[in-house]
């Protein structure tokens, strides 16, 4: 889990150029994640981590923080 959190954190920094203050920062409330950045993020998660997440299947609470995104991916990978 910790490894995935670090990976998502660096995806934000390197691919989206967003420096997220902490793994618990509320990405939605802070305005750091907007619709276009979300699309970009999902593309990068697919290409870097091999995990495809269709937009329609996303629950907003999964996107709240770097930690919750990491949890979502870990859960999907465990199912695959």
């Amino acid at each position, binding site marked *: 889990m910790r490894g995935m959190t670090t990976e998502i954190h660096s995806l934000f*920094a390197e691919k989206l*150029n967003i*420096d997220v203050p902490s793994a618990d920062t509320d990405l*939605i409330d*802070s*305005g*750091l994640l*907007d*619709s276009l950045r979300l699309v970009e993020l999902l593309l990068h998660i697919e290409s870097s981590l091999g995990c495809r997440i269709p*937009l329609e299947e996303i629950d907003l609470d999964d996107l709240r923080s770097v930690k919750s995104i990491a949890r979502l991916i870990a859960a999907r990978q465990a199912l695959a």
Partner: protein
Amino acid sequence: MTPRLLQDLVARQAERRPEAAALVYGAKRLSYGALDAAANRLARSLVAAGCRKGDRVCFLYPKKPAAMVWMLGILKAGAMHVPLDLASPAERLRRIVNSCEPRFVLAAGPAASVAAQLQDLSKVVWLEDTVPAGLRAAFTLKDVARESSDPVSCDTKAEDPAHILFTSGSTGIPKGVAITHANVMAFVDWGLKHFGLSETDRVSGHTPLHFDLSTYDIFGAYAAGAELHVVPLETALLPHRLAEWIRASRLTQWFSVPSVLNYIAKVDALRFDDFPELRRVMWCGEVLPTPVLIHWMKRLPHARFTNLYGPTETTIASSYYDVPACPESPTEVIPIGAACDGEEILLLEKEICIGGVGLSPGYWRDPAKTAAAFLPHPHRPGSRIYRTGDLGRVRPDGMVELIGRADTQIKSRGYRIELGEIEAALSSLARLRESAVVAIPSDGFEQWQICCAYVGMDCEPTPAQLRAELARLIPGYMMPARWMPCEALPRNANGKVDRPKLKQIFSTEKLACAA
């Protein structure tokens, strides 16, 4: 009394219909009476803390009802508001704060860490009860709550600036565009008439507060006494949720932006005959691809669609085009149309120039840039025009069409981007000997792909290193998507960087140099 100032629009509704909803955000509703009273309290606190007519007050907060209260409170205190983008790098925000020298920076909630990085430049007002560790606050929401909600007297004039909006500048320093109360009022008057806005309308705005488009959805709604439905931040993230939200809000007028219309169309979140009460969809900020417009017009045959055009410097929009019928071909060009009331569109050697009531007094404390962009009117002594840098032509029916840019500015996600600002930031990086930035058309979510060719110093810098350093200076939407190391930049016969050649290289070698 006819309102002259933006804040008067709310005060008038608060007097006539205090219980009517001004703002709707999720389950929250804020009435005109409550909005006006809360803004009066904040205005009193600001004045008591030393805010004077003509002062600037920056604010850091997402587009939520609290931010609307702040915006209004700042105006009522006689000051200009300067909305800042929370997602911008701290270094860029510091440059903006340095340039406008605000009396205060207002912040709350998610803005704590950013506000802490600005507090050596300006006093911070923390609009929650408890100040986070590491932050010093001039006053807090507790102090505001103790103030009276009676109106404050202020001697602001219609010709005084209401806000300053910062946009990309080619020299690397963001330019502040000052917009007066009269500028916004003129567009609001036209919009009310043209779109038939009334107190039975439910309008929505999608654009963040640091975009000038948001001033129309906010003050247009206040002028009409309509309900302003603010898109909840999380709703805007997912197209299906956004479509659901429009249905549930029963919007009647939607001021959108091309990127959002495109997003919803691409994921096919729209049903046929969706949003039965939506009468008007309008967009502004960049070109809406015709195939996307066709998608929307086929699904919403009951709605009218209007393309608005105009840069920040001429306030919200200066021309409009009501699309008469669904375009037959996806290659059809949608014109920017004809001038709104009180505005004038002129073509001077193909460049679109704008005159009339929306014209900003100029760039904040930058007479040189103001003089270069705002010229004397060629036919009317004493009047001015603004050179947009957009190129256009007039169709036989008098409608104006956009045909390109005279310089290297592009539009992405609704933001104006001067490629020169990216180059200026790159030139400050010690790892680079030289660099050049070009934009090539893209078929993805964004219309342009920003590409950078660079020559490193002796230690070969990697794109990842350069991105990391650049991210501290420019916002994410300006970041080059592709990077190409070179031995030397290609040059033309005059010794200038050969940009057409670079564009050609990036366009033909799509895969080879993708970062």
